[in-house]
């Protein structure tokens, strides 16, 4: 129960941060990606602001053996890059540019995003559903 309450709180704070920062506004996101147009630097402040507390949190996590609720801390970073990481990030970036929504803001804007936001969520869910066999094929190709 405690675990779900804290998950709800973390999700809530994340969502409020996304709305306050402008990440749920597709014009701001596309303005940031539009380096050759009317460039909007806001997202640099969002990403920078988000990295600060998290960099501290990783330092604290490194000194603890478990989380507050007793879980093992996440594994060390994986140094292997791989084709899936690059191909996937390129595809994700293409979709992010096209519509101006990434997964967090797509969910955070559900209540005010209208039919367009819902259609995006359904398409994104479908993409997530079909991805695992594709990922396996890319990994297989790479290993061959």
């Amino acid at each position, binding site marked *: 129960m405690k675990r*779900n309450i*804290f*998950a709800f709180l*973390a999700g809530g*704070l994340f969502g*409020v*941060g*996304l709305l*306050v*920062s402008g990440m*749920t506004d597709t014009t701001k996101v*596309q303005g940031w*990606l539009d380096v050759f*147009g009317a460039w909007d630097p806001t997202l640099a402040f969002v*990403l920078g*602001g*988000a*990295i*600060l*507390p*998290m960099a501290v*949190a990783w330092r604290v996590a490194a000194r*603890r053996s478990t*989380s507050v*609720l*007793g*879980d*093992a801390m*996440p594994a060390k970073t994986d*140094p292997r890059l791989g084709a*899936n*990481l690059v*191909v*996937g*990030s390129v*595809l*994700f970036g*293409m*979709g*992010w*540019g*096209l*519509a*101006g*929504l990434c*997964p*967090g*803001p797509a*969910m955070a804007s559900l209540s005010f*995003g*209208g039919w*367009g936001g819902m259609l*995006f969520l359904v*398409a*994104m*869910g479908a*993409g*997530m559903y079909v*991805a*695992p066999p594709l990922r396996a094929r890319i990994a297989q190709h790479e290993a061959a």
Partner: protein
Amino acid sequence: MMIEMDWVWGLIGGLMIGGAAALFLLVNGRIMGASGILGGLVDGTGRGTSAERLAFIGGLIVAPAVLALLMGGAQTNITANPVVIIAAGLLVGIGTRLANGCTSGHGVCGISRLSLRGIVATVFYLLAGGLMMVTFRHVLGVI
């Protein structure tokens, strides 16, 4: 006036996003990645932790809904072109699951621990997003 203040709100919102990620890491022992939390529910790989995932997503939807109400509404200004929306959604869904992360997981949580994967992913999705703006806004004029 709003335009000049945007970076302040960006910074405040960013600190909240990072604070949420820090809370989820230090209390729940989890990496706050939006695509991974949802994707694990969609493809069934997160069945063992589905309650925690649903609780996170619940907060992620409800809290901004309440704030938007208090603010007198909010806008995503998303395109009205359904073909663009569907294509974009599919690309984001497939891409984030192939790469095992999006802006929150690779961007916020990855870069802050100097993860090479997080940094490489962020460089590629930013470049791809920028190229889409050049192609579809300035060359084709679609978005």
